[in-house]
């Protein structure tokens, strides 16, 4: 499992820059960020170094931040890489709450998922998928 920093933001001008500036001033490097938005609010999902410490720092600075456990899986960077993984999840009965993907080098991509329920990591490994480790993505 990977620790993802999650921050609740109002969907208003300047909120995201304020968040990223606060993280920057903390000297924290971010490795990936994905935004979910609704009319009123947004959720920033971030991979960064020392996610627990950053969440604490943000809460002390008046943000609503938490750390969420997500799954990260290596797939080959070729047609069908993601589709194979999703087929497996579907057949194994794992429902995906949200997900996103990014390229990791030329040959591979990392697919990230939030899944309701337990046991996904073991099931994936058993099926031959290679899981990303926290240290592959960020400094602990």
């Amino acid at each position: 499992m990977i620790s993802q920093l999650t921050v609740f933001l109002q969907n208003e001008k300047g909120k995201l820059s304020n968040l990223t500036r606060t993280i920057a001033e903390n000297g924290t490097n971010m490795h990936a960020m994905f935004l979910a938005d609704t009319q009123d609010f947004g959720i920033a999902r971030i991979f960064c170094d020392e996610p627990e410490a950053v969440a604490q720092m943000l809460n002390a600075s008046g943000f609503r931040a938490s750390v969420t456990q997500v799954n990260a899986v290596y797939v080959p960077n070729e047609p069908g890489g993601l589709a194979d993984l999703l087929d497996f999840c579907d057949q194994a009965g794992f429902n995906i709450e949200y997900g996103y993907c990014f390229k990791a080098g030329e040959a591979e991509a990392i697919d990230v998922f939030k899944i309701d329920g337990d046991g996904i990591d073991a099931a994936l490994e058993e099926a031959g998928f290679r899981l990303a480790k926290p240290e592959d993505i960020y400094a602990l």
Partner: protein
Amino acid sequence: MYHQPDIETMPREELEQLQLDRMKWSLRQAYDNIEFFKKSFDDAGVSPDDLESLEDIAKFPFVVKQDMRDAYPFGLFAVPMKDVARIHASSGTTGQATVVGHTKNDLKNWGDCFARGIAMVGGTDESTLQVSYGYGLFTGGLGGHAGGEAVGCTVIPTSSGNTKRQVQFLADCGTDILACTPSYALFIADTAIEMGYDPANDFKVSAVICGAEPASENMRQEIADKLGVQYCDVYGLSEIMGPGVAMECAERGGLHIAEDQFYCEILDPETGEVLPDGEWGELVITTLTRECSPLIRYRTRDVTRIVSEPCACGRTHRKIDRLRGRTDDMLIIRGVNVFPSQIEQVITGFPEIATQYQIILTNKGPLDHVELQVETEPGFQIDEVRKLEDLKRRLEAELKSNLQVAVEVKLVEPKTIERSMGKAKRVIDNREVTA
């Protein structure tokens, strides 16, 4: 246990006789010394001599807040200025300030009224009372202070503000009883927690005496739990005296009115008819001992009811129930009457939602629009849009079914809603008047 046992546990018959004697005196005090009351009694065709029973008070005309504004500053004083020991004034945020005078005896009686509440939470001359109400023209600070002195407490007059210092005094000075507004009590508790304390275990404080603004049952519980204290609700208003008109004993079934000093009626606010005990309506108060500023049948605009069942604490004075709202606070939204306290009640049924909230009224277009801003509790999982949207929808549905008015819920970031040091500003009315 009691501050004035002979008065607080006086048999009803004796107490009612005392009230009648004092009411006759108070009517005289008002009629003989204040032009306004002479004229209003004469216009209504009644004289102080017409009062033969307590119920006869219903023959007398009302006095309302506007009458007090019109009499600004000293038009309703019944004693010469040399006998006025102090004046207090309402904030005047909704109009001309109202000025109320107190003689030396008035101040002593006031101290005794508040002192009864201190005894209700177990306070004695060994206790330390921290008064975190604002000191000044507002009656909270000096009212609580007088109560503490009447009991013989060690009084710490911190006044409101400088919240970290408030916490420091709680931690270092062994405060037993904290007196402040409920929103400030919560703010102090949260600040203490942020500073790394566990107030319920780390602090000696065993009671809070909170008043001057409405607080829902859940908010009281939150204050009681976070600070680890007995919650005592205090009722009062500057026009009548200040905090201490009624105070809540440990039985928590309502607030004992200081009936030796005040006579309370409940009125149908529409018809002006007096309602029997137990029915909800507007509280109307007649002062029985006030020398400088006696008021006969003052319409408080507070909505409550009288609880007349005997109380297990042994006090014979009847109680008022927790205030349902203030007729002044009543919002008319799309023609429907809504009290902010009703909204607060709904919010506090959602443990995921923090108790701070703000209501924003606008009317872009023909209809009133209500936006309710709330924050989620730190423990609530914010990671999934679906859960946040679901929370928002459930809260909106609950509000709609309770208020009969559609409310749009907006989840906001922490600290967006201003924390209050005095009376919390819960409603922002940006509606333009078109009529």
